[in-house]
């Protein structure tokens, strides 16, 4: 890869990284109460059902939990307060997403660790390969190639 192309590739990579960072950090528009309730309800497992969240379930207990989440939001409880209250009531497994503390952090950290280590490995390997000396043809080699390219007259 020549220098301008390499520079262009770095600029492209920078733009992509910047785009991702801005996309994540950009403040989202204000959330309505019902959106807030739904977002939290999606995090909790419906205790009566198999594999459904409180937001998706049609059972009376799930409806009661959605109402309760709304009441707690109105009372000024934070998302973490509400999560803690439900974990206190039903246990850690009421959370559909693993917790981000204790052993649960492994579930998040290990895949990221694998990707990071893989990326570092690829980076190191590419750097090593790019440092290997390139073969440069000598004058003798060039003369040989020129000779071979010359038209041959057998007769």
């Amino acid at each position, binding site marked *: 890869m020549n220098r301008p192309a390499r520079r262009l590739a770095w600029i492209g990579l920078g733009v992509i990284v910047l785009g991702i960072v801005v996309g994540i950090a950009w403040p989202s528009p204000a959330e309505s109460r019902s959106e807030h309730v739904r977002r939290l309800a999606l995090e909790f497992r419906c205790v*009566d059902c198999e594999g459904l969240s409180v937001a998706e379930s049609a059972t009376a207990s799930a409806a009661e939990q959605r109402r309760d989440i709304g009441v707690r939001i109105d009372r000024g409880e934070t998302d973490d307060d509400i999560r803690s209250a439900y974990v206190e009531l*039903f246990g850690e497994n*009421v959370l559909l997403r693993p917790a981000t503390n204790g052993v649960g952090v492994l579930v998040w950290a290990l895949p990221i660790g*694998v990707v990071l280590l893989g990326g570092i490995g690829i980076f190191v390997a590419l750097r090593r390969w790019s440092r290997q000396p390139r073969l440069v043809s000598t004058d003798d080699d060039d003369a040989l190639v020129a000779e071979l390219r010359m038209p041959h007259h057998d007769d």
Partner: protein
Amino acid sequence: MKHPLRWAALAVGVVVAIFAIILAVNVGTDPRADLNTSRLLGKPAPDFSLTKFDGTELKRSDLAGKTVIINFWNSWCRPCRDELPVLQQWYRAHRTDESVVMVGIPRDDSTRAIRQAARDDQMSWAVANDQGAKSATLAFATRGQPESFVISPRGIIVGSVLGPLTPATMDQMVRVGKRNG
């Protein structure tokens, strides 16, 4: 180790090994097991406010000083129907014991179906609708039906069973409740 690649390979190997250990430990365990054990055992019973079919209100404070059996059920629930003869038999044997109260609370049912089931099945104990401002279904963190709790006279939850009760379980839970009174 001189080569960074070997370090990276070793690190990836360690991470994969951790994954394998976690997988091996968790294979065969029920991820919902945590949900199958009430976390309210040994804690004060939550407040509740229910409306009985005669229109009167039933609050936790009304039951203070008594051993209370709370049974969550539904008229359409098969295991609840299977449990019913046990409840009827136990209630008949203890109905004169004024220190024990039994309350049936439907979890997810229509008032009409509850009324009919209570009448047809001769539920002589208190059956109350859980439609008050404080939901007992959620306050007791119920996980299905039938599910029963025993509250001691001091207001502590001393027993909890998810699934149909047996006469022996009922006797044992009430005994524990009275002992903790």
